C-alpha cells in the first residue's frame, strides 16, 4: 500500500525520470568513456555531485519563486536580465560608492522588490498578459545593465564573499557551498508554506480559477502583487549569491536564466495554465537539468550539441509527464485520490 502510494504521487513520474537519467549517464560513462573501469567514473563522485549542486543553486532559488508565480497563473521572463541589473548595480555601489556588504544587500533587495512591485501593479491592475509585460521589463533591465557597466565587468575585489564562497566540509571530498545551503533552506521553507498555510492554498486557488477565488473572498489583485514582490526577494538573493561567488558584476551573469528556470519549473510538473505544481517537483526539475548538463560535459559532448540535447530532454520529459497524467486520469476504480473518469473529454 505504501509503495503503491509512492508510485501515485504527483512527482513520481519525474522522480523516476531523474533516477533513470542518472543511472543511464553512469552506465554510458562507465562503458563508453572509461572502458568499464569503475574507479575512473567521475559522474557520481562526491566532488562532482557537490559541483553540480553548486551549479544548480542559483537556478534553484529563482525556480522556487517562479513556481509560485506560475502556479498562480503568471510568468516572469525578466528574471535573468533583472539578475544582471541587480548584480551589476550592487557591484557598482560597492566599487564606486564604497558601500559595505549589508548596505549593498539591503539595496539589492529593495531595488528588486520595488521593480517587481511595479511590474506586479501593471499585471494585476490591467488585463495585459504577464508574458508580454515581463518581456518588456526584460529589455528595460538589459538597458539598465549596460548603462551601469558600459558592457564591462565590475570587480568587487573579494568583498561580499560570505554568500558565495564559504563552504561546509562534510567529508574530505564533499563540501557544500553556501548557495546550496541557502537553496535547501529556501526549498524547505517554501515547501512548508505552500502546504500548510492559507497563503499557500491561495496561490493554488488563484491559479486554479481566478473568478471563483475572488468570489471566495480572495483579493486576487493584491495577492498577485504580493507574489511578484516575493519573486523580487528571491531574485535579489540569487543575484547576491551569484555576485559573491563570481566576485565580479558581470553584465551577462543572468543571461538566459529565465529559460533555464522556466524549463526546470515546467519539467517539475507546474502547469503553464496555473493551479498545479509544487516545490519538490521543481527541485527535481532543477536537479534533472543540472545533472544532464553536467553529464554532457563529462561525456565530452560538444557545447553546441548540448543545447540540442537539452531541448530534446525538456520536450521528452514534459511529454512523459503529460502521458502519465492522461494514463492516471483514465484509471477506473475508487482508489483514494484517484479520479473515476466519467467522461474522457473532461479529463
Amino acid at each position: 500500500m505504501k509503495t503503491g502510494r509512492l508510485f501515485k504521487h504527483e512527482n513520481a513520474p519525474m522522480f523516476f525520470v531523474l533516477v533513470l537519467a542518472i543511472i543511464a549517464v553512469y552506465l554510458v560513462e562507465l562503458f563508453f568513456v572509461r572502458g568499464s573501469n569503475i574507479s575512473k567514473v567521475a559522474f557520481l563522485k562526491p566532488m562532482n555531485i557537490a559541483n553540480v549542486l553548486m551549479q544548480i543553486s542559483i537556478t534553484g532559488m529563482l525556480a522556487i519563486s517562479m513556481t509560485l508565480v506560475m502556479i498562480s497563473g503568471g510568468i516572469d521572463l525578466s528574471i535573468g536580465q533583472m539578475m544582471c541589473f541587480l548584480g551589476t548595480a550592487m557591484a557598482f555601489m560597492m566599487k564606486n560608492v564604497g558601500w559595505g556588504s549589508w548596505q549593498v544587500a539591503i539595496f539589492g533587495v529593495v531595488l528588486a522588490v520595488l521593480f517587481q512591485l511595479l511590474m506586479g501593479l501593471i499585471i494585476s491592475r490591467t488585463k495585459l498578459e504577464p508574458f508580454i509585460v515581463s518581456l518588456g521589463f526584460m529589455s528595460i533591465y538589459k538597458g539598465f545593465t549596460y548603462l551601469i557597466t558600459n558592457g564591462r565587468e565590475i570587480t568587487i575585489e573579494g568583498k561580499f564573499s560570505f554568500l558565495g564562497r564559504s563552504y561546509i566540509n562534510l567529508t574530505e571530498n564533499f563540501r557544500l557551498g553556501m548557495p546550496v545551503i541557502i537553496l535547501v533552506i529556501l526549498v524547505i521553507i517554501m515547501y512548508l508554506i505552500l502546504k500548510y498555510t492559507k497563503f499557500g492554498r491561495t496561490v493554488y486557488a488563484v491559479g486554479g480559477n481566478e473568478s471563483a477565488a475572488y468570489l471566495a473572498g480572495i483579493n486576487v489583485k493584491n495577492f498577485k502583487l504580493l507574489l511578484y514582490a516575493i519573486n523580487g526577494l528571491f531574485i535579489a538573493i540569487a543575484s547576491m549569491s551569484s555576485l559573491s561567488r563570481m566576485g565580479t558584476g558581470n553584465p551577462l551573469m543572468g543571461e538566459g536564466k529565465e529559460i533555464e528556470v522556466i524549463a526546470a519549473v515546467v519539467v517539475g510538473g507546474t502547469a503553464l495554465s496555473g493551479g498545479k505544481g509544487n516545490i519538490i517537483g521543481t527541485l527535481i526539475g532543477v536537479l534533472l537539468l543540472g545533472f544532464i548538463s553536467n553529464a554532457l560535459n563529462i561525456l565530452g559532448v560538444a557545447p553546441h550539441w548540448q543545447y540540442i540535447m537539452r531541448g530534446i530532454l525538456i520536450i521528452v520529459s514534459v511529454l512523459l509527464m503529460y502521458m502519465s497524467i492522461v494514463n492516471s486520469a483514465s484509471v477506473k476504480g475508487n482508489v483514494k485520490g484517484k479520479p473515476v473518469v466519467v467522461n474522457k473529454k473532461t479529463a
Partner: protein
Amino acid sequence: MSEELILKMEGISKSFPGVTVFDGFDFDLRRGEIHCICGENGAGKSTLIKMLSGAYSPDRGDIYFDGKKTESMNPHTAMRMGIQTIYQEHNLFPLLNVVENLYAGNQIMKGLVIDEKKMVEKTKEILDYLHASISPFDIVGRLGSGAQKTVEIAKALVQESKVIILDEPTASFSQMEIDHLMGIIKKLAANGLSIIYISHHLEEVFKIAQRVTVIRDGQKVNTYDIKGLTEQKLIHDMVGRDVSLFYQRKKVPIGDVIFEAVNLSGNGVNNISLTVREGEVLGISGMIGSGRTELAELLFGVKKAESGEILIKGKPVRMRTPLSAIKNKMCFITENRQATGLFLRHALDKNIAIASYSQTKTPFAWPREDYKVSKHYIDALNIATPGVYQLAMFLSGGNQQKVVLAKWFATEAGIFIFDEPTRGIDVGAKEEIYKIIVNLLEQKKAVIMISSDMPELIAMSDRIMVMRNGTLVAEVQKDDISEENILKHSIGANETLGGNER
C-alpha cells in the same frame, strides 16, 4: 402579406442528451409576414432559431423553404438560401467599417480587384432605404447598439435574404431606437420580406406582429392572428403547467428581517430595495437579461453599487468586495458553478475549505483540518464521491453543486444568494437541493433565490420580486403567486389583469 408560405416546418423533433426539447413541432411563415414567437425562458426559442439557421439539424421532421424541401442545412447553406439570423449579440467585425462589414466574404469584384466604389454606392442606397443616419465609412464598433442592429439588417439585405430572424433585437435599446427598428421591420415586411421576431416584451409583440406562435416546453401551444388576441390569452398559453409538477415544500416560521437593501443602483440595476427575513425564501423572477444576476452581484459586493445602502441585522455594511460580504456571513452560489464556483482541477477538500480561510485569523491551513471539515460536509450533504481527494471535475452536476454549497456551509454563512440553483441538475438531485434549502430555513437562515425555473421558484419562494429592465416591477406575496401573475409582470403586460403593483 399573402397567404403564400415561404417557410414551413413539419413534425420537427430535436433532443439533446437527456432532454427532448422539441417533439413533433409544426410552424409556418408567410411571405411578407411579421411572425412573433413567445415563450418563457427555456421554452425552446433558441433551439428553434438554431434549427432554422442551420446551426442544429432536427432529429426528425422536414423544413420546406420556398416550396422546396431542404436537405441537411448548415449555417452557410441557410444563409445562401436566404435565411438570415440576427442574434441578440452583435455578429459584426467591430474594427471594420460599415461597407467592409456588409460585404465581408461577399465583395463585389471588378475583374481581380474589389469594386470599392460600387460597394460604397450600394451601401449608401441600403442605408438610405433603412433611414439610417450612418455613414458607410463609420467604424462599426463605435456605433451604438441600435445602429449596429441596423447594420446587421443592412447586411441581410445585401445578401438578398428572404427571411430575417431577429432574436431579442431590442435588448439594451432606448425607446427611440426601438421605434426606429419597428419602423424598419414594418417597411421590410411591406416589401415582401418575412420576419421572425422573438421578444420578451409584449408591447413590441402587439405593436408589430401579424401572427404569434406560442411555444412551451418544445411544443407549439397555438398560432394566433394578432387581431382578437388578448394579452391574457397569450400569457395563459405561455404558462399553463400541471400543478402536480410543483415541489411541495415544508412550511417554516418566518422571523425578523436579517438583510435589507435600500435604493441600490449600479451595474445595470436601478433603485432596488428589498428585505429578507430569517427562515424566508425571497424569490427573484424576471426574463433573462432583466438584471437578476447583476442585482445579486451588487448584493454580494462583486460589483460596487453607485448608490444605495445594504443593512445586515439593521446595521449598514459597506460591500466593497466579496470578502466584505463573506465576513458578514453572506454567500453567493453563482449560476455557472464550473466557471465561478469550483476549482475543477483541485480536490474536494481544497474546494470546500477555501472560502472559510477568511473566517479565522491564523495564517495556517492544516490539511488535516481541511480534510475533517470536508469529510463532515460530504457526509452531511450526501455528496457521491470516492473520497475527499477526488478532483471536482469528476463529479456530476448535482454533486458539484453540493460541493459549492459545502464550501459556503463551512463558512457558517447565514444569508444565501442562489442564482439558478438547479441549472443542469437532474430531477433527483434537484429535490435534494430543495431539501437542503428548506433545512437552511429551519436553521433560521435567509435565502434569496434567482431562478428561471418557474415551478421551482413558485414552490420554494415565500415572496417573489419581479425584475424587468434592471428595475423591480412587482412584489408578489405568497397567496398571489402564480405563474401567470409573475410572467405578466416580467414581460410588461398591461395592469388590467390585477395583482399588487408597487
